[in-house]
């Protein structure tokens, strides 16, 4: 039982990180039809910005801000204007391929220009074990959960409680209608890219202490983002959160109770199951194409 609680907590922590990544991914997809195959590498990269800043002498707290700022600049602004915008006129497929190439580019870039070795990454809080009813819970898991929850709540407040947020939601649901209603669509789309950049940066800072900062991190994290988004329902932000948490918990539990050699396979099986049985995901709506 104690083990189960431990796994549950750490699963929730992992799930919270997946949720952040999946939410950003879904937002960008909803507003601009951009399926960002490089989302995993987007999560891998900010950690290296932070590390570079610390190497240049900045204290950790400053380095994290620099990391987030650089992330917004590169993964938000540059990504939108240099990669996405020129490609929109060609349709979805070239954009998908471009983001696939981008993921390779970022991965190889970090490997060649920073290091191919895994880098230790400072944790937000010192790792102390707390004992709760015989279960051993790490403060790190709790910190991750706390930060993730705060971020999701803040995002929710932004999307539902502010005018800008509601305009973003309108853009996500129906671009044409939003435009007719006077919503500055292009700006809203830019905002979603920026939000995604912030989310992946936070996720990066949360996940790198656990996995170490390595150029290959993008592969598993990207996959987690896609699967979480699909499980939750591609067209729902709430779904992405739910999907992330479900995936994190199931992933952790499976690693403990099922063979660890096939740990990577479990999320994939969930993916295939969802596609087979409920392709619109847990919370998604069935989408239509009209003529």
């Amino acid at each position: 039982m104690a083990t189960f609680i431990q796994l549950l907590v750490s699963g929730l922590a992992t799930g919270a990180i997946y949720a952040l990544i999946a939410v950003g991914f879904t937002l960008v997809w909803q507003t601009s039809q951009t399926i960002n195959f490089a989302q995993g590498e987007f999560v891998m990269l900010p950690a290296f910005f932070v590390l570079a800043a610390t190497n240049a002498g900045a204290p950790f707290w400053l380095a994290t801000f620099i990391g987030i700022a650089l992330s917004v600049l590169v993964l938000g602004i540059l990504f939108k204007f240099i990669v996405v915008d020129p490609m929109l006129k060609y349709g979805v497929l070239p954009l998908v391929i471009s983001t696939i190439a981008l993921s390779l580019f970022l991965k190889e870039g970090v490997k060649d220009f920073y290091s191919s070795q895994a880098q230790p990454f400072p944790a937000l809080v010192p790792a102390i074990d707390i004992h709760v009813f015989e279960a051993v819970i790490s403060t790190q898991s709790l910190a991750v959960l706390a930060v993730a929850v705060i971020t999701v709540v803040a995002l929710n407040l932004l999307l539902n409680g502010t005018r800008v947020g509601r305009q973003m939601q309108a853009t996500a649901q129906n671009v044409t209608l939003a435009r007719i209603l006077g919503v500055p669509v292009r700006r809203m789309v830019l905002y979603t890219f920026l939000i995604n950049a912030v989310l992946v940066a936070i996720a990066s800072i949360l996940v790198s202490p656990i996995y170490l900062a390595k150029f290959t991190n993008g592969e598993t994290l990207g996959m987690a983002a896609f699967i979480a988004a699909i499980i939750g329902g591609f067209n729902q932000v709430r779904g992405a959160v739910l999907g992330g948490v479900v995936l994190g918990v199931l992933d952790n539990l499976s690693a403990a109770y099922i063979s660890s050699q096939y740990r990577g396979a479990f999320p994939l099986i969930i993916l295939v199951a969802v596609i087979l049985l409920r392709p619109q995901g847990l919370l998604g709506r069935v989408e239509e194409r009209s003529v």
Partner: protein
Amino acid sequence: MSAVLQVSNMRKTFGGITAVDNVSFEVHSGEILGIIGPNGSGKSTLFNCVLGQLQPSAGEVHVDGRPTTGMRPCDLNRLGVSRTFQLLQVFPQLSVRDNLILAGQEHQGSITSRLFGRADAGVGDAAGRMIEFFGLLHLADEPAGSLSYGQQKLLDAAMAFMAGPRLVLLDEPAGGVNPTMLGHLRERLRAYHVEQSATFVVIEHQMEFVMALCTRVLVLAEGRLIAEGTPRDIRQNPIVIEAYLGH
């Protein structure tokens, strides 16, 4: 005489908007039924629901007494129901001839037999006849994308006719076509209708086109069926006039 097409209580909602509201009608063999109505009255949505491009929220469709609600467009097509689209949809890279062969080939044999059979799936001659029928002989081997708008509309109709369908639904066939070509198009449609004893349903904006071609007319407004009758009756119907003027 069973109706070729029977639509019962068709309803389609998008979020909070009801685009098609409880529409029912029948189409009898040999008719040319016109469907008119102001912009946004749900005509195209109705077509899309009947023909499988959209899933209806409620209601049923029967073709020759056979339930076809929600059937995939390709399966419906193979039952002998064909359509044209409002936004022009030919295959610009293929030649005119190839567009027509494509339109006919899926009705020949099975998918496997088509792999090992003739390159034109045996419909080359039929395509040639269709090209002559629509007066496109001089353009037969040109890429469809290089045709004028009016010529593409003719091709669009020709493609819909290729498989010898019993029922053809035409979505604004006259839209954007210049007056000279319009006459030719209307004349060709009527000729096909007579020669092949086909049944047509035509959505159109252009009143003259509808009045000259159709035997019976339905009027939609705001998703609902508001009138039905011969072209002359409809033209004089106060409810219809109100619906058009009121917009």
